[in-house]
């Protein structure tokens, strides 16, 4: 961190600009100029497939870098409104030109991902957070690694494998990727390239349109690992993708007693049954003084239905933007099914469904 930036972040400066921060002033000169706020300029938008893009970004000096596997909150302004989503970093950590990239699959009803894919232009300024997330490679990478991904869950794993390649990792890396078909697959050319590396095994399985004469088929199965000669109990494994894939892998690893070797990240939250028949009780929004009958949707969705506008980011439980205090009641995590019933605890409302009467500080 530059000495100027450190000075700008110091307490004396903060007391001179109180109650605002120095960034409120620097922002008026130029948005890229900041002591704390991370901003980046779009360098290039690369079309990966018909519905996936990679956005290359050059961040300002406040960016402290990322660890492969992490994600970033990505905000773009359209029609005066900043829209923020979480996207995984997909580039190698070894990039020397100060850029990094995120890769995004355009969801049919995803406003930001559609915008990125179709309209984002180079030179646009975007609003970022620092890189976040625990789904990362360890400091000392073991020799043997298994990386598994499904669909657009490939992006964080891609960042890992690219970094491993660029940093000269010599151990055996197996990359097992599930996609619906070859045309749905992101980074096809890069995966071909990686497959040519002597220590890397790339296996791609197309679940809907299987390629001819392949040895592996269908959804994840323990046979896939056996076929590749991988021992789950001794191989550090990363898996990222849809909830179905992760559930399968998690159960398999648990059965084999290899749960401690597994690192997981959900890429898409399973959709919740909106008018769940078993939804009971009342959801109360303490700050606004509003009560609503529990509809079975996530607390975030129910709050929005009640006319509130709570802050949110990724809407899939990773970025923590929507975390608020739950004053009382029990909630169920939509992915893990974990139930939390403590009073006065902080929850991410985008992935929590109320069970019975719940009171939140909104």
């Amino acid at each position: 961190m530059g000495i100027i930036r450190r000075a700008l972040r110091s307490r004396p400066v903060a007391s001179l600009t109180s109650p605002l921060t120095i960034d409120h002033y620097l922002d008026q000169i130029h948005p890229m100029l900041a002591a704390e706020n991370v901003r980046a300029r779009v360098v290039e938008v690369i079309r990966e497939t018909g519905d996936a893009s990679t956005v290359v970004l050059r961040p300002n000096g406040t960016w402290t870098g990322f660890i492969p596997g992490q994600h970033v909150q990505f905000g773009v302004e359209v029609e005066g409104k900043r829209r923020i989503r979480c996207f995984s970093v997909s580039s190698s950590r070894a990039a020397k030109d100060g850029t990094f990239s995120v890769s995004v699959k355009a969801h049919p009803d995803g406003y930001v991902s559609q915008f990125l894919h179709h309209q984002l232009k180079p030179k646009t300024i975007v609003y970022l957070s620092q890189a976040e997330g625990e789904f990362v490679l360890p400091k000392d990478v073991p020799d043997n690694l298994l990386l598994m991904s499904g669909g657009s869950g490939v992006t964080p794993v891609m960042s890992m494998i690219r970094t491993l390649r660029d940093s000269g990792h010599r151990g055996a890396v197996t990359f097992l990727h599930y996609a619906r078909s070859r045309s749905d697959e992101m980074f096809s050319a890069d995966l071909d390239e990686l497959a040519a590396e002597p220590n890397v095994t790339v296996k791609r399985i197309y679940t809907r349109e299987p390629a001819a004469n392949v040895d592996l088929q269908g959804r994840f199965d323990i046979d896939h690992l056996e076929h590749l000669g991988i021992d789950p109990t001794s191989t550090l494994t990363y898996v990222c993708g849809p909830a179905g894939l992760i559930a399968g892998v998690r159960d398999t690893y648990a059965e084999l007693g290899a749960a401690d070797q597994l690192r997981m990240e959900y890429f898409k939250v399973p959709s919740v049954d909106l008018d769940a028949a078993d939804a009971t009780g009342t959801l109360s929004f303490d700050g606004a003084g509003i009560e609503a009958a529990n509809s079975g949707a996530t607390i975030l969705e129910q709050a929005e239905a009640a006319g509130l506008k709570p802050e949110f980011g990724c809407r899939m439980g990773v970025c923590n933007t929507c975390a608020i205090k739950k004053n009382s009641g029990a909630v169920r995590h939509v992915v893990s099914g974990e139930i939390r019933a403590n009073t006065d605890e902080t929850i991410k409302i985008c992935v929590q469904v109320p069970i019975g009467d719940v009171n939140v500080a909104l």
Partner: protein
Amino acid sequence: MAKKKLAPIKPHSASNHNAAPLSLINKHSDKPATIGLEYMTYDQLDDFGRELDTVRQRVLDDLGQKDADYIRRVIKVQKASEVLGRVGILFPFFLPVFIVGIALLAVAKILDNMEIGHNVMHGQYDWMNDPMVDGARYEWDNIAPSQDWKHGHNYIHHTYTNIHGMDRDIGYNLFRIDDDQPWYGSHRFNLPLAFLLMLVFEWGIMYHGVELDQYLHGKITKEDFQGRKKRAMQKIRRQVFKDYIAWPVVGLALVPFVGWWAPLAILGANIAANIIRNVWTFCIIFCGHFPAEVQTFAEEDAQNESRGQWYLRQLLGSANISGHAPFHLMTGNLSYQIEHHLFPDIPARRYPQVAEDVKRLVEQYGLSYNSGRLSKQMLSVVRQLAKFGIKPSDPYKIGNSPESKALRRAKREEAARRTEDARTPHLTS
């Protein structure tokens, strides 16, 4: 089993901290509120409410880039004034620059408090999802901590506007400004006290937000009160340190060139800018609610009010100030106080536009629309303060007279009896 919800009126808030408008509910009676019956029927009141809802929705649907550009432009002007003002007051040896510096600093503080702070903290720009104009996070250049101000202003004042016993902004527990307030001896000093408050208005707002009176009457808990006190003390420390210590200390660098008095001059400039801001905000705010003809309401009349009645109460309880565009900017468009009270959470730059619709409705229903020049409204406020400061001849209007005490006791007993009556059938059935 259908549960009775606490929010009978659909909340239209654009932000999660502005809970208005939740109407006043009588738990023991379904009798509809009587507000506005001298102007229209219940059906007409419902139409009136629907029309205003439509006006509101039309603006909300149209929010976009131009509103974002506008508030950012105002912020840019505000920041430029502030920086230039702070630089200007570093020239105490060159009087014209020094004075312009004070003026620019005062303008910056006024813009921050009015068009930016007040409006942002109403949640008017929350839809932009930009942390710099986020109502929940904004903290203004004012002694009053935003959190407690938002509760007292956005919630209490904007929901229970001009209801005696509910809206703590009627005379701020300090002045008698309305005939329905009981008179106490201290009200003899209505005018001189108002003059003093004008000079230190930001401290008054802070003190109002601490809610010592509510605590002493047992209306808020000790923890609540202590929290308010703590936040106020923290904000006081920061504001006082910035304006009266840190910036004058920067002026120490001038001492070798200017003389020992340079930091004192800078301190004086900060005090002057704060006072100018206080005088201005005091005038605008007093003109918004305290001129003659602005109506106040009794709690009994407002219980179980409809959305239309809520709107009508806002309309009759506020007053506008006419003027040119730069004037409206400097008031934070609170010169459109009526429109602001009808639609507290739509961007204030839209008030001139919605005023046309409001005036049309006012004509249609034969209502009064209180508007006038600053001098006229200010004069009216001064006259009201003077008039209601005089001891009334009617002993029932004197707060600590035996008659008025007996009257209040009778009212309390009557209310308790009604409550009991309303409960009895439930107990026997």
